């Protein structure tokens, strides 16, 4: 299958990319979501502005907080010692994206801009309080991950705006994990759960929890967080959190004929328990 016809521009810098993009245009990063969509004619942009060669958009720096350039690939994030140390859950999520070929070329910026509900990285970004940095013709702005993901395939990005990087608070004193139930064919998440726990001895001082896959977007789960915080993560607390998480995601459920909403909702509870075990194990 050939993609639709389009005009192609290779941008050498962020300014060049912002200057080139037209109303009918899209940015091209790894192409691992956009090209499949174009081949299936689910989208047919008239112009592609290739940002894959812009050096300033790529790479990871750890300077108090973690900063990841938009065109950094999943494989680079998964393999980064800085990400493993400062946000183990994100390294794990990026390592579980699709397969090795997808991880070699798919980028974090493309992943979150596409906002597929079955994606992995967004769930960790929402749990860990990441910030998305955006540049447009009118200037730069930053949006918290929770506000960035608006709905199914819908983000806070305006037309012509470019994600430049994602930043995360240093999470090295947290216990952080991401577990997923991968679709047997596509490997996308049927359910994905991210937890980030601050422990004080045996007690969980605070918990951050987010669920994706089961939902139209990554959802922060306040009820589950409250059930875990202050507990010793004993069976009673875990069961309460698994119940609470089902309510937390109740308004955002997604499903299909093979894995309906009610099933995914139930699995969110199961995978929450597994995520806590992975974080503390």
């Amino acid at each position: 299958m050939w993609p639709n016809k389009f005009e192609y521009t290779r941008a050498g810098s962020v300014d060049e990319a912002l200057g080139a993009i037209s109303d009918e245009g899209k940015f091209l990063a790894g192409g691992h979501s956009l090209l499949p969509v174009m081949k299936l004619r689910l989208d047919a942009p008239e112009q592609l502005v290739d940002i894959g060669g812009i050096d300033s958009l790529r790479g990871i720096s750890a300077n108090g907080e973690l900063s990841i350039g938009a065109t950094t690939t999943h494989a680079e994030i998964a393999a980064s010692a800085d990400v493993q140390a400062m946000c183990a859950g994100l390294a794990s999520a990026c390592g579980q994206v699709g397969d090795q070929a997808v991880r070699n070329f798919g980028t974090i910026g493309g992943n979150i801009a596409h906002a597929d509900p079955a994606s992995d990285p967004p769930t960790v970004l929402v749990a860990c309080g990441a910030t998305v940095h955006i540049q447009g013709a009118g200037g730069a702005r930053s949006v918290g991950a929770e506000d960035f993901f608006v709905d199914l395939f819908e983000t806070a990005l305006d037309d012509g705006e470019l994600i430049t990087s994602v930043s995360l608070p240093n999470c090295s004193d947290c216990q952080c994990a991401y577990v997923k139930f991968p679709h047997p064919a596509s490997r996308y998440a049927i359910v994905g759960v991210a937890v980030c726990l601050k422990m004080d001895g045996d007690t969980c001082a605070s918990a951050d929890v987010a669920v994706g896959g089961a939902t139209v977007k990554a959802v922060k789960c306040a009820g589950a967080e409250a059930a875990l915080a202050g507990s010793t993560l004993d069976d009673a607390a875990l069961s309460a959190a698994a119940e609470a998480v089902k309510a937390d995601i109740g308004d955002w459920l997604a499903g299909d004929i093979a894995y309906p909403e009610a099933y995914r909702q139930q699995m969110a509870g199961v995978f929450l328990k597994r995520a806590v075990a992975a974080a503390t194990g």
Partner: protein
Amino acid sequence: MQVAITVNGVDHERDVDPRTLLVHFLREELDLTGAKIGCDTSQCGACTVHLDGKVLKSCTLLAVQADGADVTTIEGLAEGGEHHPMQTSFWENHGLQCGYCTPGMIMASAAFAQDNPGASEDEIRHYLEGNICRCTGYHNIVKAVKQVADAAAT
């Protein structure tokens, strides 16, 4: 648009329509038909090649994105008339039935076994998730990869 892509050590310059996928470029411009189009939806891995040493599904990248890159296809894997060890191992272990998935399987596995000496059967099966064999001959494919990974560890 003009592109310059090195394929199996040979430089090629061509004027391509930007919507040309790398797999089209290889098969139709260069007559390198080793990389197959299976699913055409980025799932099956029959089109797997190496781009700058990294495993890639060539149906999921534009030729213009590969401008300046170094691509290796199954046709370029053998060196000096000798099969790559992974090719030999697929042969010895009968890691193929119809052979349609084989170029992709070998390209994906060759990169893996080199970086993961001594890999376990589980690791190999997990790694090959992105390569589908419609004849479902996975058992011998895994055996073939294991033989090379084991040899790399000794």
